[in-house]
C-alpha cells in the first residue's frame, strides 16, 4: 500500500477536523447566491471548497468561519448574515453536512458518515464589545471566537497591528472568562503574542489556534512562538497548523513583503485588489516569481510543533477560501491526504496521526463543555461593559 492509500484509509476512520474555512465569506461576496455555487457539485473554477472535494479530502468536521470585515461598523449584523448563510448550507445539504454544537455531535456525525459542521467567529469585532451579543452568537451556534482579526479591537491586540492595550485589557479578560462560562472556545490565531499569553493566563478552558503555524519555522506574526506552544500541554489546547504560503514559507513571507512594498510605492494599499493594483502586482510577479510552498513545508511546521507542544496538541486549519494562494499538493480541500501521506513517510505513527486529524480537536471542544458546565453552576452571567472595566468607550 502506498503511503497515500494508507493516508486515505486512516482518514476514513479518523477524518480531518479543519479549524477554519472561509466558504461563507466567499459566498457573501456573491450575495449569498447559493444556487450559483451549488457545493454539492464541483466548484473548482470558483472555490477551494465543495462537498465532493471535502469527501475526497477526508474531512469529517469543519469549523465554518463566519468572518466579517473589521473596518466597517456593521460587524454584528454582518456576522448574523454569515451565520444565516451557514445554516442555509446545512439546510440544503442535510445528507452531507451535520449541524454540530458539541463534541458528541462531532462523534455522531463521524458515525453517520456526515461532515460535522460548526461555526467560528473570526475577530472580537463581531461582538462589538457586548457580552450579551457574545451570548447571542453562542446561542446561534458559534463555538469559537478568534479574539481579533488583522486589526486590534478595543480590548485585544492583533498580531498584525501596533501594540495598543498590550495583550488583553481587563474587559478582554472578562470576554475570555465569559467564553469559558459559555463553552465557546477561545481562538488565539491572529492575536498578538502578548494577547496569547494574557489569554492563557486568564482562561480556565483549553484554547485553540484555528489556523496558525510555528514562528520558529517561519518568522511571521501570524504564527505561534515557541514559548506559547510550550504552554499548550498545561492548558490542554490545540494548535491547528495552517497552510497559507505567506505564513509558512520564509521565502513567501519575504516575497509578500516585497510585493506589498511595490504596491505601496505606487500609491496603493497593499490589500488593494482593484484592476490597476492587480496589474502592478502581476507585473511584479513576472519579474520576481512567487516562491511556492509544498506539503513538505507544512509538515516541517508540524514536526516542530510536535517537538515543542507535543502530539496531543496539534490539529489542522487550512484557511481554504480565505487565502489566494495554497501550497503545491494542498491546493484545495481535497488535499489533506497528501499531508497525512507526507507525515507517514516521515515516520509519524497512525496513532499520532489520528490525534492530529480527529481526536485532539474533538477533545478540546468536549473539555470546553466540561469547564462550562462547572462554571455555569458557580459563575453568574457577566454583563460587564468595557466602560466599567477599561474606563473608556469601546
Amino acid at each position, binding site marked *: 500500500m502506498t503511503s497515500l492509500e494508507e493516508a486515505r484509509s486512516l482518514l476514513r476512520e479518523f477524518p480531518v477536523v479543519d479549524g477554519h474555512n472561509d466558504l461563507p465569506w466567499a459566498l457573501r461576496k456573491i450575495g449569498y447566491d447559493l444556487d450559483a455555487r451549488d457545493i454539492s457539485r464541483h466548484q473548482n473554477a470558483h472555490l477551494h471548497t465543495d462537498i465532493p472535494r471535502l469527501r475526497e479530502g477526508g474531512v469529517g468536521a469543519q469549523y465554518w468561519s463566519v468572518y466579517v470585515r473589521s473596518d466597517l461598523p456593521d460587524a454584528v449584523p454582518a456576522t*448574523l448574515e454569515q451565520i444565516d448563510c451557514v445554516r442555509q448550507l446545512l439546510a440544503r445539504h442535510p445528507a452531507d453536512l451535520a449541524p454540530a454544537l458539541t463534541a458528541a455531535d462531532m462523534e455522531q456525525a463521524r458515525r453517520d458518515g456526515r461532515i460535522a459542521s460548526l461555526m467560528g467567529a473570526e475577530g472580537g469585532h463581531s461582538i462589538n464589545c457586548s457580552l450579551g451579543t457574545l451570548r447571542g452568537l453562542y446561542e446561534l451556534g458559534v463555538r469559537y471566537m478568534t479574539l481579533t482579526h488583522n486589526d486590534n479591537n478595543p480590548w485585544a491586540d492583533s498580531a498584525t497591528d501596533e501594540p495598543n492595550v498590550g495583550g488583553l485589557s481587563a474587559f478582554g479578560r472578562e470576554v475570555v472568562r465569559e467564553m469559558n462560562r459559555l463553552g465557546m472556545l477561545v481562538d488565539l490565531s491572529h492575536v498578538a503574542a502578548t494577547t496569547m499569553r494574557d489569554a492563557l493566563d486568564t482562561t480556565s478552558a483549553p484554547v485553540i489556534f484555528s489556523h496558525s503555524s510555528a514562528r520558529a519555522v517561519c518568522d511571521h506574526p501570524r504564527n505561534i512562538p515557541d514559548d506559547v506552544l510550550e504552554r499548550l500541554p498545561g492548558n490542554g489546547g490545540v494548535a491547528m497548523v495552517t497552510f497559507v504560503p505567506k505564513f509558512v514559507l520564509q521565502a513567501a513571507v519575504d516575497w509578500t513583503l516585497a510585493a506589498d512594498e511595490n504596491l505601496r510605492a505606487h500609491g496603493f494599499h497593499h490589500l488593494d485588489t482593484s484592476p490597476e493594483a492587480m496589474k502592478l502586482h502581476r507585473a511584479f510577479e513576472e519579474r520576481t516569481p512567487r516562491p511556492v510552498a509544498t506539503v513538505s513545508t507544512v509538515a516541517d511546521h508540524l514536526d516542530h510543533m510536535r517537538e515543542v507542544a507535543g502530539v496531543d496538541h496539534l490539529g489542522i486549519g487550512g484557511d481554504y477560501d480565505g487565502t489566494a494562494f495554497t501550497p503545491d499538493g494542498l491546493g484545495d480541500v481535497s488535499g489533506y491526504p497528501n499531508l497525512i501521506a507526507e507525515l507517514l513517510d516521515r515516520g509519524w505513527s497512525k496513532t499520532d496521526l489520528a490525534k492530529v486529524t480527529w481526536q485532539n480537536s474533538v477533545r478540546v471542544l468536549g473539555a470546553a463543555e466540561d469547564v462550562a458546565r462547572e462554571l455555569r453552576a458557580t459563575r453568574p452571567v457577566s454583563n460587564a461593559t468595557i466602560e466599567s472595566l477599561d474606563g473608556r468607550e469601546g
Partner: protein
Amino acid sequence: MADLQDELHTTGGLDAVPDLFEDEPRAPVGDPDGTQLERARAVLAAHPVADGYSGLPWALRHLHWYDLELGESSVDTDVPRLRAGHVGALFWSLHLPEGIVRDRAVGATLEQLDLVKSVVGAHPDGLRLVCTAGQATDARHCGRIAVLLGPAQAAALDDSLGVLRALHSLGLRVLTLTGVSWAGQTGLTRFGEEVVREMNRLGVLADLSGASTDTVARVLAVSRAPVLFTRSAARALRPHPANLPDDLLAGLGAAKGLCMVPLTPEQTGPSVRAVADHLDHVREVAGPECVGLSGTFDAGTAHPQDLADASRYPHLIAELLHRGWTESQIALLTWGNVQRVLRGADFTARAAQQRRQPSTARIADLDG
C-alpha cells in the same frame, strides 16, 4: 407542587398539536350569585390574559437587585401581580429608545433578547419562554406564565433578511413595521413586501401599531398570516395617531387580525370604563375574535385609574361582564384570539416553507 412540575418535560412535541381543549364547549364557571369581580376572577382563571405588550425588558435593563418572583416595587410587573391579575402570557417588547439605529439596533436587540432569557431563566417557577401557541398553553398547564419575544422594531433588522432569520431563530415572534425606509409613510417598498413574505415564511407576526395607513393597507394585502396591532384602540372614541379608524377596524375584522387595546389614558381615556368603551367599540366594528388586551405596563406611560399594574385585569373584566360580554367573548378577548393568531402564524409558515426558499433579497437590489 413547583418541584413536581419541574420534572415534567412536556414542552417538546406539543407544539404541533392543536389545542383541542380550547374549542370544547365549557360550562360557565362564573357564579351568578357572586359579585362581578368574583365572576371576573373565575372567568380569568379559566381564560387568562395574554397581554400584548410589556415594556419590562428595557425597564429591567438598568435595574440591579430586583426579584420578580417575590415582588418588585420598582416596576409594574412581577410574578405575584401577574398571578393576581390572571395573566397567563405576555409579549415582552424589545423596542429600543429612539436614536438606536442600524448596526447598533441589531446589537442592542441581541442584548435585549439575552436579557429576557436570563430574566426568564432566573424565575423558572413563574416564567417560561415560549415561541408557539402550543408552548404557551403548555406553560399555562404547568402553572407558568408564558413569555413571548416581541415586538421588536423593524430597525432591529438593519435592512437584512439574514438578520431577520437570526433573530427569529433566537425566538423573536413579532416585529413592528415602522421607522424604516421600507415601511414608511408611503407604505411598503418592494423590499418591505419581501420582508413581510419572509416574516410569513418564518412565522414572525407583523405589528402595525403606529404604522402609516399605506403600510397597514399593503401589509394586510400581502400578509398571509394574521396581523397584530399590539397597542391600538378606537380612533372613533379618541383621536390618537396609533388608534384605528372604523374602516380599518372593519378591514382588520375581515382579515381576522387582532387589535390589542392598550391600558393607557392617552389612547383609551383615564378610567376602566373608558377602556371598556374602546373594547366595546372594537368588538362591535372588528368583531369579538379580533380584539385583545395590551397592558403596556413598564413602557413609560401612565395607566387609567384602577388599572395601575398587571394585577388589575379582573377589574376590567368585571366591567365587561357588567356590560353583558359573554364568557366566550371574554375568553376570546383574553386568551383565545392571541392563540388563534399565533397558530395562524405557524400554519402560514409551515405552508410557505414548502414553496419558498429563504429570501436572499437585498434592499439595494429591490429599492435601489
